[in-house]
Every structure is written in C-alpha cells, then in structure tokens.
C-alpha cells in the first residue's frame, strides 16, 4: 500500500476516535468540516480536474438541502429514500443546467453557472408556499437511528468517506484522466475524437450529485435551511476553501475547508470582523501561496528531497 493510503487510514482512525474525547466543540467543528470538505472536493472535480470554473455551485448544495427537507417534511418519505433522492435531485438539476453551461467556455461558463444559481435562489426565495421563502424551513430533526450529535458525526463521517472514496476512484479512472486532458487542452482532446462537451457534462452531473449530498447533510446538521444556502456568496466561499487548500491536489479542498472553518470559529469568538480577516487571508494566499496550503507543502517537500 502506498504511503498516502497509510496516512489516510491514520487520519481516518483519528477522526473516528474524536468523539471519545467527549469534546462537543471538536465534534461540532469536524462535522461541519466534513460536510463542507465534501462540498469543496465535489466542486474541485470541476475546477481542478476539468478546468471549469463553476461560480454557482451553491445551487446544488441548496437543492440538496431543500430536497431533503421537503421530502422528509412535506412528502413524508423515510430517511433512506429521502437521502438517496437528495443526491439524485442535485444530479438532475446539474444535468439540466449543465446541458446549457458546457456549451460556453471560461468566463461565460462561470457567468452562466452564476446566473442559473441565482435563478434557483430566486425561486426558493419567492416560492413561499413550498419553501417558506425568506424564513426557510425549521425543525429538521435527526432521523431516529442517528438521534445524537455524536451519532450524526459518525453518520457524516461514513457518508463523506464513501463519497470521497468514490470521487477519488473517479478522478483516477480513465474517465478522470480524460477530464484532466480536457482541462489541459480542450481543442486537442476534441481532435483525438473525445466528445469534450459530453465529458464536461458528466463531470458537472457527478459534481452536482455530491454537492447535493453535502447540502442534505448540512440540512440535518443545521436543523433548518434558508434560501441563502443557494446565494452566490456560498459559491464564492466554497471556491475559497478549494483554493486555500489547493486545487491541484485531491485532498487540498478538504484541508482548505478544515482551515477556513476552524479559523472562522476561532476568529468570530474574538471579533465581528471575520470578513475582513477572510479577505486578507485570501489576498495573502493569492499573492504568496498560489498553490494553496497543500501545494505549498508539496513544494517544500520537493525542495528538501530533490530526488524522489
């Protein structure tokens, strides 16, 4: 087994042991980190692996959250069915929206994903009778068999680990290799007979699926949901997480989510000026660590061991 896999298993064991410390603070923080880490990794399938800048990823996160809440509260489905449909709802939305978006490139792609996510937001915001409008939906309880914060932490851990495992298989598969080829040179990929738009669309759907899963998890974690889940600053925030960790490494976005959420929790207990701090971190990152945290450490390791 490779060294990276040993590290992953060690991290996983540590994560599984965290609730034994009895610290509610860390259980809370890590649940949050796992959920947003999955969200960021799913975004990075587009950003880092396919070279598509999606500026509207909050749409699928929000759709997942609302799909779960509505299926449980309004449709009265059982937990298993509702949770499975959560991911599919994101994939379905990504299929429809992606169908139009992949026809465009670069900045126009980013603008169209943003425009669609704003439509999703506006619909959720205005459709009072279904979504509760501005007040959102309250009272989303833990399902019976995961009735405590610790149990929910383990549930989240399992869902996220399985999802991330699947995503890692995807990026290392021939399909994933085609995506990186598209990122590096779409014209050449097209000319060797690969349907670039189709593969971009498939990546978009997979990404939407896992973003919706993370949205569904967050709905349960937060016990209530709001239209702001789909609003564009969330899309920006998950992009920042991805870049902070490093978009050219698979686990980078996970690290970015961890660092950002930890800092936010710590900083907001001292000062109300968190946006200022976040903005400053982002500026430092762009100017001095363009490869993100993971990219920075990878460079350092290479420097110290030139012959790997």
């Amino acid at each position, binding site marked *: 087994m490779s060294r990276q896999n040993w590290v992953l298993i060690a991290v996983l064991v540590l994560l599984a042991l965290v609730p034994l410390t009895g610290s509610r603070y860390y259980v809370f923080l890590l649940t949050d980190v796992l959920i947003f880490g999955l969200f960021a990794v799913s975004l990075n399938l587009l950003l880092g692996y396919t070279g598509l800048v999606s500026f509207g990823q909050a749409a699928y996160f929000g759709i997942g959250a609302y799909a779960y809440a509505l299926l449980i509260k309004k449709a009265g489905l059982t937990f298993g069915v509702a949770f499975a449909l959560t991911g599919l709802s994101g994939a379905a939305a990504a299929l429809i929206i992606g169908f139009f978006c992949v026809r465009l490139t670069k*900045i*126009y792609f980013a603008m169209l994903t943003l*425009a669609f996510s704003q439509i999703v937001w*506006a619909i959720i915001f205005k459709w009072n009778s279904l979504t509760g409008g501005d007040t959102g939906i309250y009272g989303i309880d833990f399902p019976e068999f995961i009735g405590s914060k610790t149990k929910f932490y383990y549930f989240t851990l399992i869902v996220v680990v399985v999802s991330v495992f699947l995503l890692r298989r995807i990026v290392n598969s021939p399909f994933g290799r085609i995506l990186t080829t598209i990122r590096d040179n779409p014209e050449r990929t097209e000319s060797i007979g690969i349907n670039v738009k189709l593969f971009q669309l498939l990546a978009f759907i997979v990404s939407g699926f896992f973003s919706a899963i993370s949205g569904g998890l967050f709905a349960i974690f937060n016990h209530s949901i709001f239209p702001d889940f789909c609003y564009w600053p969330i899309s920006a925030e998950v992009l920042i997480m991805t870049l902070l960790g490093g978009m050219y490494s698979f686990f980078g976005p996970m690290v970015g989510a961890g660092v950002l959420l930890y800092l936010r929790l710590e900083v907001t207990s001292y000062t109300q000026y968190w946006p200022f701090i976040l*903005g*400053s971190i*982002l*500026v430092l990152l*762009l100017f001095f660590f363009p490869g993100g945290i993971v990219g920075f450490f990878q460079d350092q390791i290479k420097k110290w061991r030139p012959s790997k």
Partner: protein
Amino acid sequence: MNFDFSFVAIQFLYGLTNAMFIFLIASGLSIIFGVLGVLNFAHGSLYMLGAYTTYQCVSFFVDSPGYFWWAVIVASVTVALLGGIIERLLLRRLYQHEQINQLLFTYALVLILSDVARFIWGVDQLSVSRPAVLKGAVEIFGQYFPKYNIFIIFLGPSIAFLFWFFMLRTRSGRMIRAAALDRETLGSLGVNVDRLFTVVFVIGSWLAALGGALVSPVVTIRPGMDVEIIINAFIVVVIGGLGSFWGTFLAALMVGTVYSMGILVFPRLSMIFIYVIMVLVLIIRPWGLLGRPLQR
C-alpha cells in the same frame, strides 16, 4: 389591481431612474472588463464607498452653498483614486495569473471593503437629503414625480453621450479602445499600456463611485448595498455584451424597466424575469446583445 395610465407611466419613470443608476455602475464594470479583462466583483464596493463618502462629505460641507454637488465630486474622485491605488499596488500583479485568481482577488476586496465601511460608519442606515435646487416634485399625468429623479433621467444619457464622445473622438479614448482589442501591439507601438490600465481602472471606479454618490439621496446607505448592486450590474453587462458600451446602456434600460413594470404585473416574479433574460442571452448570444464574440 388598478392599472390607470398615469400610474403605469410614473412607474415607468421610476424604472427609468433606476436604469440610469444601473447604467452608471455597469458602464464602469464593462469598460474595466473590456480593457483589463478583469471581472471586478469589488465594483459594488466602490459604489457603496461612493455613497458613504458622499454622506461624510455632506456632513462636512453642509454649511456651504451647493454642498451636495461638492460632496458628489469630492467623494467620487476620492474613491476613484482609491481604485487607482488598488490597481497599481495589487491587481496589477495578478494580470499574468489565471482569471479565477483575479476574480477571487476582487472578491477578497468585497469582504475587506465591506468591513472597512462597517468599521467607519457602523451598521445604521444613513441618508443624505436631496440638494436644495431639486427638492420637491413636479406633476406628470396628475401624479407627483420627484425633481431629483428627472435630473437623473437626463443625466444618464448625457454621461453616456460624453463618454461615447470621449471614447470615439479623443486620443485617450482611441487608445483605450485599441487596448481592448490588442494590448501587445499597442504596447509595441510605444504606448504605456501599464499607465493606460490604471487610467481605465480609475475611470471605471469613478463611474461606480459617481453612481453611489448620486444614488445617496434616494436610497438608504447601509451595509449590504454593495452585494445587492453587483449582481444587477453583472446582469446588465452580460446582457448588453461584456465590454460593449451601448450594449450596457440598452441592457440597463431593459433591466430597469422590466423590473419596475414586472413588479406591477407579477410582483413575485420580476426578479426571476431578469435572471431568465440573462440566461437566455448567455445561451443564445453569449457575447451579449451588442457585444462581439471574444477570444478569451
């Protein structure tokens, strides 16, 4: 609902006022994108700072005659210079980076500037009173319509015309247009492209700040106005065509009037209408109504 003609006409005039404000802001966004290739999220923040700085200047100058106009000039120029400093010291270093990095840098500015404004002016809603000359209303079709709004409706096209004249007929305007088309060739012809970029960013920032300064008497100045306006400005620029000047004007008119008319007919859907127009434009003509296809 009562749809008598005068009511619809007045609503249309309010829409036209809004369109002019959106035009001022979006035209700055458009010229910065057209020349620098940067989609500036912080444009809304400059607009917000323009409004706050006007409030500050008004309270400084309140005893002198014509204080509102001085406040508008001083505030918009100050914010424009701030834009110039940001471009010179920071943004400049990112031109060689990927577009996503530039986008995130301007988003970082949104976060920083919103907190700076919150730190200086707090979270209370502030307001500026209308200048003495333009207080009161005139009667149009039996309804009262504020004089200040009429002034804005005339000011918008005047600025559009001046701007168009500047771009088409002056040497600086020609160089800006040349830079939008091919900055390498322009540089090799001996034009200082670096300085030109700063000038364009200052002009764009000034337009945003002017929008903020002029809007201050008709809205409440408060945190969050930056994020609200930027999406509308993006929509206008995208519908009109990124970098297209008259496209921006046309799209601002469309968005302003569709919004105010839409509220009359479908109060819940007027916001969605505009997003849908944007999506349709992006799908059918990604380069916008009056733009031309770009190789970016």
